[in-house]
């Protein structure tokens, strides 16, 4: 499933620093909640990973060791060690280990280039971490937690329903 256009269009005009601030918040709270990620990444935690959602006009580059994150508008040529490209919902599902990356790759839904060892380490580290975006985001949203969690969960349910349909 791809993001509907009305949802995507505004991203083209939102200033990059605003997107960056929002995503940075998510990223650093994830890292805080899942320290095991670093242990699994081992030497690969210093690598730069680019995530390029095929249905968004932006690219995210993260470096776990420095909790560093930057956002670039497409077309971008990010300085990254490894790049993964695919629909946003699949990238998020991967983050949570809800989809099997290999299966997505075999089906050509995902494309990966660059340092494959780093990418594999990240994939495995994420998969081992039991990230739960609605729960994790809710935890960092203070008094708004229940609302954030519920909304995120509703979105995820819809997205995953789409994925499962595609699997069968």
């Amino acid at each position: 499933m791809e993001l509907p256009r009305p949802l995507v269009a505004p991203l083209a005009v939102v200033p990059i620093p605003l997107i960056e601030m929002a995503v940075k918040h998510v990223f650093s709270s994830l890292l805080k909640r899942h320290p095991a990620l670093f242990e699994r990444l081992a030497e690969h935690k210093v690598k730069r990973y680019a995530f390029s959602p095929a249905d968004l006009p932006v690219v995210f580059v993260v470096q776990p060791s420095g909790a560093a994150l930057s956002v670039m508008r497409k077309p971008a040529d990010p300085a990254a060690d490894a790049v993964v490209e695919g629909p946003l919902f699949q990238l998020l599902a991967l983050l949570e280990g809800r989809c099997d990356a290999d299966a997505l790759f075999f089906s050509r839904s995902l494309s990966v280039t660059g340092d494959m060892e780093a990418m594999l380490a990240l994939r495995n580290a994420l998969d081992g971490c039991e990230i739960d975006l609605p729960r994790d985001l809710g935890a960092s949203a203070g008094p708004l937690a229940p609302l954030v969690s519920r909304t995120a969960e509703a979105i995820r349910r819809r997205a995953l329903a789409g994925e499962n349909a595609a699997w069968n």
Partner: protein
Amino acid sequence: MELICPAGTPAAFREAVDSGADAVYCGFRDETNARNFPGLNFSREELGEAIGYARRKGAQTFVALNTFMRAGHERLWYQAAADAVRLGADALILADFGLMAHVAETYPEQRLHVSVQASASNPDAVNFLVEAFGAKRVVLPRTLTISDIARLAGQIRCEIEVFVFGGLCVMAEGRCALSSYATGKSPNMNGVCSPASHVRYRHDGGDLVSELGAYTINRFPREEAAGYPTLCKGRFDIADASGYAFEDPVSLDVMDQIDALREAGVSALKIEGRQRGKAYVAEVVSTLRKALDARPEERQALLARLKLLSEGQRTTSGAYEKRWR
């Protein structure tokens, strides 16, 4: 028959147990096991917790120490065996004679399984391992047909475990140096085959080109399902023709043969895939559990959905079917 399931992380381990595994197999985060991939596998602490989790839910834990000890560095393997025994592993899965001898001598009560990497493919070989090291179970190489297995079962003095689903080695396991020929890293010595450190994907026009070390392993046109750049599943040129010289990018699925396997004397069915994610483990284990418990005529419908999770999105019954040879 028992269902033996893979886990590369504690998260996958719990999924496997919760999805109906009778036993879960896993390894330490180093070269002592044949899935020595970055970001994968268990620390000592994680293994201890996993074994406890499995126990509470009535499942067993098998620890794979199934690479060959690097000369002069045997301590790494001996320590891994000591720790697995101490943490309460229900069985150790071993391939190296030196390590088998060490375990049989040092921990005579410890249950020892023969890894597929040991390449015990006939009755004399299996009985040797039973007599020499007290092996209780052998994981058979993926080179035998079901009738070969039935014949073997009548002549050996230990349990039989066979692979039924997942990645398919085309070559006799534990006897393949294709990976190290191209990359310097092998399953036997380093616990990796066609390692990610030597893999490169390149886009060439609409094609996806996969490379391993200095060699092109495959080229997938735009709409074609892709595969790992595993050497034995690459596309090569022989004389003037291009094609899959050894095997297509397919994976093994013989779940439609489980009655025949049971009749052949198989005690345990093994799922490959410690390197796959927890979503895969949950999906495959729960489906195969249902299939095992279902009536034969219900199985096909249950199993059909697994195809999409497979390499190349296709499956084969491999050597279990004679014509594969």
